[in-house]
């Protein structure tokens, strides 16, 4: 590793440095991906712009909308009391990332910018219709997360632009979220498949009025199973309907075979985990935990 090092003390200064170095610069947050990729020689930025002295990017705001600053750590998400109810799925995604050492420094901004297809928090944010805020010298723009993720390691963030945060609406009453991850062991594991679900019921609890099913590690980016979502909307929240949604998601996803699992096994996992995640949402709504 060899680079020029910069540590701006404000967002404005960071954005100026980003614009100056463009594609030759990288912003450094927790370093849990970037430092490893640099050591492997996969990335060799000439300029590293550390964000650790930039104030104002590590806040969590909850007031109708939820805003997570780019430097919010997985640890902070895990421990945020406001996420214990309807946003439980977000906590479940954050608490299975790496071990404590990773979660203590790894950030939501880094998780998004790194754009791993197997990132655990990203499918949950996708299920929440999150929007990513990018700031450049030309100003700030919000990009729907679905449009932000372009492929492994590739995002819609332009060279020099700084990802400053991610925002989404607080889910309505009678709505719950859940996240499930399949790996070969329980900790320190990259997901073989992960599933995030958001389910909203009508006032009587008889029909699904909103549904999101987002999957990780079955496509080049975290991915929404729209066929499954369409099957759920307007239907009663029964095990049969949930199983049907699982079959639709499994049929539509296009996983690869790699060192962690075969494509076929990943589809079987999707078919199993989607109904399970939906059932977990339903249970949470019925318990009034949301």
């Amino acid at each position: 590793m060899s680079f020029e090092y910069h540590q701006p003390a404000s967002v404005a200064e960071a954005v100026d440095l980003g614009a100056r170095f463009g594609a030759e610069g990288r912003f450094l947050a927790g370093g849990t991906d970037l430092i490893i990729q640099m050591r492997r020689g996969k990335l060799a930025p000439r300029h590293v712009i550390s964000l650790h002295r930039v104030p104002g990017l590590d806040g969590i705001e909850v007031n109708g909308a939820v805003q997570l600053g780019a430097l919010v750590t997985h640890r902070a998400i895990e421990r945020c009391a406001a996420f214990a109810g309807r946003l439980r799925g977000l906590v479940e995604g954050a608490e299975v990332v790496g071990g404590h050492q990773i979660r203590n420094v790894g950030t939501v901004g880094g998780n998004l910018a790194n754009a791993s297809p197997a990132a655990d928090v990203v499918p949950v944010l996708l299920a929440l219709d999150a929007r990513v805020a990018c700031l450049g010298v030309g100003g700030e723009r919000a990009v729907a997360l679905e449009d932000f993720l372009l492929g492994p390691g590739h995002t819609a963030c332009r060279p020099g632009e700084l990802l400053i945060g991610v925002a989404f609406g607080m889910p309505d009453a009678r709505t719950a979220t859940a996240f499930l991850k399949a790996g070969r062991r329980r900790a320190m594991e990259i997901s073989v498949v992960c599933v995030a679900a958001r389910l909203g019921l009508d006032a009587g609890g008889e029909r699904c009025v909103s549904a999101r099913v987002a999957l990780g590690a079955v496509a080049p980016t975290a991915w929404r199973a729209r066929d499954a979502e369409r099957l759920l909307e307007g239907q009663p929240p029964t095990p049969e309907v949930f199983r049907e949604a699982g079959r639709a998601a499994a049929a539509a996803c296009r996983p690869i075979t790699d060192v962690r699992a075969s494509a076929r096994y990943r589809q079987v996992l999707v078919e199993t985990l989607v109904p399970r995640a939906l059932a977990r949402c339903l249970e949470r709504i019925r318990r009034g935990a949301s």
Partner: protein
Amino acid sequence: MSRLGLSLTINGERHDVLTEPHRTLLDVLRVDLGLTGTKENCLEAECGVCTVLLDGRAVNSCIVLAAQCEGRRIVTIEGLAGDGGLDPIQQAFIEHGAVQCGYCIPGMILSAKAFLDERPEGTEAQVREALAGNLCRCTGYQKIADAVVAAARSRARGR
């Protein structure tokens, strides 16, 4: 390449070092300061042998740049024992035979310390989860977990 002058607070003592920006906290601890209790192994934040406490939280020093630690509090295994002897966690590791080859132990102990400082009455299941980022290739996990649970009890008695 430009060098950076850094002031690091390690185990309560201030150290001024002059180093290149690409060097990690692990490099500086082991090579510049001779604090070799912190071990080096995978260099990819997988194994946890390089765990130290940064402002009280467990981090993998192999992926933290030394430059990011300026002005922050670092605790390594060398800083755990005080004038009164070993830390209760160290003592419990000895009493429970939790150390085999020993290479993972400094990281294990620091992860355990970060955990117990936050949750003094940790259950065994919580202890195991807390140590998930520390690998022991001798596979002595049971005795390690026993030692941390015992340390929690002895710390509680000491209060």
